[in-house]
């Protein structure tokens, strides 16, 4: 726990802040290259159809059109993020035989300007044989349902099962058993920056892709495989990214099309999506149908849980397999019980594919789990916080086959949130239309299960130090707004004992930064890359320490410290030299070889899921307008164990942003779909909360020290997206007597629920 409080735990403003407030920060669509062409896609107009013919002749005749490609022109290699299971790779960059959702990409064009490209894309004619389409998991799994993929009978692409303990026996033994059904809906990541990519052709059939992504390494690999060229022929450079939230973690058809046509035309090709494209065809959070059965003793001890989930995956797997996998994990987090059975099925439907989105299965699973805890608490006559305390996980607990919890501040979180929210008094005081509710969460700090099947370490860092006292950090870690460009420099600065301003960062260029980093997802970046950086920095320090022993003729029992841009004898700080001078002397002995070290991190022997878990609890307070059913969240209180917060301001920023997303998920955001078509394709109709809609938020830190994390840190990005929905749902119940088992909780549902309407 020996760290510099000026750096670790400080609220250091993000280092790219100035660029972002002055408009200097460059996002992909801000870039242009000489000779650049503009791309456009032709997408399926039907939800499910066989492609009989694609006629591109009219498009090709349009003046200014430089290339038109269909699936037939491409190598036709399927891709998907689960390389470990090749059968799960079910997507083609451009459709060949079939289309499976409205918006499925069929052809791409590029032209001298956007207007011509759009005109050409519209001029492509597709002859379809329409097939019956299915829009819900119930329809999809019904007997005789039309199949989306021949390889997946029953439209189930993947099943995950977990089973331990004597489920039936314990449920039979339980004093109190309940079974509930929950339904949650799809929402959009709604990052502010629409996706954009520019492919620039290079000599030798190579290509550089500038793209708005949160997983450049994955894009590099999958782009190479779908183009059927060596991985090393593809260089992916991440620019500034205007948010991702899981929506930018796969290779996308326009990235392929840009690269493919850049190689064919010898000119740079840019694609930028519109907001309507994003909302109509973009990835989204999985809708799920959830059944949960739990058994308790009469004094509130949770004995067993039977948890069944059907994920509505849309037309392709995307990141659905991981969500299916993780739902099973999140179904047995937070509480200890002896028997658990999970069955998760990923189901295809003729809708835009669902994929990873902040929380990755946990917001859905927790809505069910936490709502059910609140319902059980009421019937058991135990306060919901007490019920949780009875069953809460603690440091050292083991989740069978999954993980050992190496740090856990869950109980402290419950106690703290009880206190700051004024829980005990407010829950007693029953005021019609006003309520207080709770939801809790736990989340992974990165995944262990190597579904991408990388041969490299999960995170890597290259550190070089210079005689002028500066350092360079090369990392593939991906800042999409959450802040690792700053946080990782804090970690390096703290480890090397130099000022953060001394560190130049080169991030996210697959040709320059060390292999690999799997990307920004699963809240993995700080823990995994932080560890890789510390590993590299330690190697650097080991190269520098001998200098001091040499120059000061030290007794070998001394320990050397690195602080305030100096290298010093710990027991006698006066004996020191500047960091730069130390590097200078070290370099002199290396015959011209720079002082560079690489560090790595891969979680090993940490169970199947994650090396560390965050915990927390949130209380929401609502006021319900009993005439209109409108729910206003008037306050939120959150207690959060993210280990040691490396950057407090950044953690708070994650919390406040997560509440906006959680609020939208619970109350106002939803896709309106009709026959596979998304009807609300603007931010006017897709209603994410604006500034006036946000409640005040109180935040209490529960600091634990995570032994597996850099300087004790664990995740802070995604767990916070989990508790808001069950907390609000519980508060609405307290206020009105209406318990929502489905999201979103619209005013209509509330009014209906409280019996004002038939």
């Amino acid at each position, binding site marked *: 726990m020996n760290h510099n409080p000026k750096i670790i735990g400080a609220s250091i403003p*993000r280092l790219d*802040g100035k660029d972002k*407030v*002055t408009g200097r920060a460059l996002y992909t*669509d801000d870039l242009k290259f000489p000779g650049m062409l503009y791309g456009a896609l032709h997408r399926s107009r039907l939800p499910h159809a066989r492609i009989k013919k694609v006629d591109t002749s009219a498009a090709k005749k349009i003046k200014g059109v430089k290339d038109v490609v269909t699936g037939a022109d491409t190598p036709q290699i399927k891709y998907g993020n689960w390389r470990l299971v090749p059968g799960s790779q079910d997507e083609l960059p451009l459709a060949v035989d079939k289309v499976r959702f409205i918006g499925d990409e069929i052809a791409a064009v590029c032209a001298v300007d956007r207007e011509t490209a759009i005109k050409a894309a519209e001029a492509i004619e597709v002859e379809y044989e329409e097939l019956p389409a299915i829009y819900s998991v119930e329809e999809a799994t019904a007997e005789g349902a039309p199949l989306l993929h021949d390889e997946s009978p029953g439209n189930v692409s993947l099943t995950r099962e977990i089973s331990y303990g004597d489920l039936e026996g314990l449920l039979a033994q339980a004093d109190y058993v309940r079974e509930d059904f929950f339904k949650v809906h799809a929402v959009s990541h709604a990052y502010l920056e629409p996706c954009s990519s520019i492919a620039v052709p290079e000599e030798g059939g190579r290509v550089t892709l500038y793209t708005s992504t949160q997983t450049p390494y994955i894009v590099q690999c999958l782009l190479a495989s779908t183009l059927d060229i060596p991985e090393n022929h593809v260089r992916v450079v991440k620019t500034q990214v205007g948010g991702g939230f899981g929506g930018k973690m796969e290779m996308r058809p326009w990235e392929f099309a840009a690269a493919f046509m850049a190689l064919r035309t010898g000119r740079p090709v840019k694609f930028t999506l519109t907001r309507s494209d994003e909302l109509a065809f973009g990835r989204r959070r999985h809708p799920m149908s959830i059944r949960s059965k739990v058994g308790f003793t009469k004094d509130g001890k949770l004995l067993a849980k039977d948890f069944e989930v059907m994920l509505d995956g849309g037309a392709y797997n995307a990141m659905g397999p991981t969500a299916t996998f993780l739902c099973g994990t999140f179904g047995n987090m937070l509480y200890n019980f002896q028997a658990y059975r999970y069955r998760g099925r990923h189901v295809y439907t003729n809708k835009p594919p669902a994929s990873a989105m902040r929380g990755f299965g946990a917001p859905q699973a927790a809505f069910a789990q936490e709502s059910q805890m609140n319902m059980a608490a009421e019937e058991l006559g135990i306060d919901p916080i007490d019920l949780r305390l009875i069953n809460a996980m603690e440091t050292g607990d083991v989740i069978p086959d999954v993980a050992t919890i190496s740090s856990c501040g869950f109980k402290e979180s419950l106690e703290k949130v009880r206190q700051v929210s004024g829980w005990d008094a407010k829950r007693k005081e029953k005021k019609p239309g006003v309520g207080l509710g709770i939801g809790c969460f736990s989340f992974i700090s990165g995944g262990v299960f190597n579904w991408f099947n990388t041969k490299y370490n999960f995170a890597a860092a290259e550190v070089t130090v210079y005689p002028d006292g500066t350092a360079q950090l090369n990392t593939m870690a991906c800042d999409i707004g959450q802040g690792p460009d700053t946080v990782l420099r804090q970690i390096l600065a703290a480890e090397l004992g130099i000022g953060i301003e001394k560190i130049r960062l080169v991030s996210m260029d697959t040709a320059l930064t060390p292999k690999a980093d799997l990307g920004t997802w699963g809240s993995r970046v700080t823990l995994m890359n932080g560890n890789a950086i510390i590993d590299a920095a330690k190697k650097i320090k080991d190269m520098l320490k001998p200098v001091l022993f040499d120059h000061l003729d030290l007794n070998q029992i001394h320990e050397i410290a690195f602080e305030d841009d100096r290298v010093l004898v710990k027991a006698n700080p006066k004996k020191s030299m500047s960091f730069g001078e130390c590097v200078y002397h070290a370099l002199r002995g290396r015959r011209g070889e720079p002082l560079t070290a690489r560090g790595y991190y891969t979680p090993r022997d940490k169970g199947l899921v994650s090396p560390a878990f965050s915990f927390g609890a949130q209380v929401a307070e609502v006021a319900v307008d009993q005439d209109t059913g409108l729910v206003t969240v008037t306050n939120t209180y959150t207690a959060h164990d993210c280990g040691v917060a490396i950057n407090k301001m950044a953690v708070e920023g994650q919390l*406040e*942003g997560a509440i906006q*997303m959680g609020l939208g998920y619970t109350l106002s955001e939803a896709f309106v779909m009709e026959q596979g078509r998304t009807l609300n394709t603007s931010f006017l109709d897709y209603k994410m909360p*604006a500034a*006036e809609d946000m409640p005040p938020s109180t935040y209490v830190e529960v600091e634990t020290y995570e032994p597996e994390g850099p300087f004790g840190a664990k995740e802070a990005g995604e767990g916070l997206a989990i508790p808001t929905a069950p907390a609000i749902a519980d508060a609405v119940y307290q206020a009105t007597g209406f318990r929502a088992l489905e999201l979103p909780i619209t005013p209509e549902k509330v009014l209906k629920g409280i019996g004002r309407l038939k």
Partner: protein
Amino acid sequence: MAKEIIELIVNGDRYEVAVEPWRTLAEVLREDLNLTGTKIGCNQGDCGACTVLMEGRSVSSCLTLAAEAHQREIVTIEGLAQGPEDLHPLQEAFVEHGAVQCGYCTPGMILSAKHLLDHNPTPSEQEIRQGLSGNLCRCTGYSKIVEAIGAAAAKMAPAGEGE
């Protein structure tokens, strides 16, 4: 139809540009003047990322024709700082208070904030939130943005005013 020459006064600089009438101010700022600080988040006037000031009032530049901006004074995010290190108090406050995450909404947020403070130098928190109601953000939950604007207002207010 032929292009027409229009004159734009952007951040105090005069530009003559030949534009087709169907091109928006946002497109011309970004593509012809290379002022890419103005962002396009929705291109239909709902998100506020393209907000600029025209004659001192905030407008969505994606819903303003370049032709309509002929001979008008435009301020974009590039026009606020006096120098690379000499930021406008709003810009400074956004950095210091952690009001920036992905940064894509930031230029529009700052210009909406400037519009607000130009017309109401000492806004309440509620007025700040109302002033931002045309700017969507997905990262920050708005709290630190609201805080930053409050702090900038206090700093900019003449002595004796503000909070």
